[in-house]
């Protein structure tokens, strides 16, 4: 790290060597994330890919964007967007994730008289499962 001869800022700056090392690290992480994506690590694939993305962003921010060499105020400004995004995620997903938990109107017997089904439902026996193996899940329907 060198003291810049420029008079326009007072903070220290990363050296060109550090910039290049940072770039190589980023490339390594890129290769790593692609390699991991081709392994079956369910259910951790998504989590790993995102963690690497966070790591890469940190490297870019800290070194390329000089955040690691900046004042506390700059840190606050840089983090603000992330914190607000976190609020946005947390409270939106509070709704979506808890939708299924809502107290349900279970265990209610329908107040409806039973109507005998039309022919074709109970009169035909169900074909045994083993005789009718289905193809794997998400194919298109007929």
């Amino acid at each position, binding site marked *: 790290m060198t003291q810049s001869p420029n008079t326009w800022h007072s903070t220290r700056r990363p050296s060109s060597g550090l910039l290049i090392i940072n770039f190589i690290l980023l490339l390594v992480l890129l290769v790593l994330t692609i390699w991991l994506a081709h392994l079956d690590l369910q259910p951790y694939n998504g989590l790993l890919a995102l963690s690497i993305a966070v790591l890469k962003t940190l490297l870019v921010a800290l070194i390329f964007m000089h955040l690691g060499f900046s004042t506390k105020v700059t840190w606050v400004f840089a983090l603000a967007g992330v914190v607000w995004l976190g609020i946005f995620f947390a409270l939106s997903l509070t709704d979506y994730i808890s939708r299924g938990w809502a107290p349900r109107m279970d265990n209610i017997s329908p107040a*409806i008289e039973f109507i005998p089904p039309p022919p074709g439902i109970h009169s035909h026996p169900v074909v045994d499962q083993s005789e009718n193996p289905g193809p794997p899940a998400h194919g298109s329907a007929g």
Partner: protein
Amino acid sequence: MNRTFQLFPDAASRMSHQVDHLFWYLMLWSALLTVGVAGLILTFAVRYRARPGHRQGFLGPHHALEWTWTFATLAIFLSFFFWGADLYIGESAAPAGAMEIHVVGKQWMWKIQHPEGRREINELHVPVNRPVKLILASQDVIHGFYVPAFRIKQDVVPGRYANTWFQPTRPGTYHLFCSQYCGTEHSAMTGTVYVLEPADYAAWLAGMPTAVSEVQAGAQLFVQYSCHTCHGQQAPTLAGLYMSRVPLSDGSTVLADEAYLRESILYPAAKIVAGYPPIMPSYHNQLSEEQLFALIAYIKALRGASATQPATTPPGLVGEPPTTNPTGNPITNPQGIP
């Protein structure tokens, strides 16, 4: 209703009285605070008005006072929250045994289907003192089902079912409004709720002898759309499906509630039942919301049938066998509806 002057709305459901109690509690505190603040401002304005010989004093920071009123307001506000939360949780689920009525909102009318088959538009007849659960769907945009006298309101969002319930306590006629702006004739999307004595309600129900019950209508659709040609054979049987846990091809299970049944009819490929080929076509854009309600009512009515043919039901499909009598029909009618 039909009065020319009203200061406070009719309270005609169990919930309405509870909401009003909370309302008056908040009113009490609001009045105290407003009178307190306004009274202080007026007092100070008079007492400390600028006049010859009067000089202002200095008042430094007073942390004890600041923290006192901060935590006092917080405590009062939290009492509002907990009371409100308690009622809201109670409001969120209908009690067991509520009668179910299906409501479809569309621009710009409310279509109501009673399980016994009577249909009405912009009118809703219900018996007094019986909990009524509404399952609501919208055919186009977001509507809002609002009965001020019951203090209930529920947005009806297209693409999913909404629920609300009430227990009317006073016979009479009450307003039904659409509360969510839904286009040109939003303000004309209103109706009337008739709360009837049980005998009057029975008479009203019998008023249309030719009515086809919703389950029968569903059964007809079931044949008309050839659902019966697959279900029970190369597709899972539907008997006993409602409110069971269905194993899916990805290893998870899902509760077969109305939302699941609806999704499986419209988007069959979304959740594939374990062990079955995904051959069902999508009925998206082919069935109206009313037809969907009828089909689902029919599927729900099939719940006892699994007991009659245990051998043919794929293992695991009936996770939680519903309470039923062993013969499978007819299911006891717990509410004694004629």
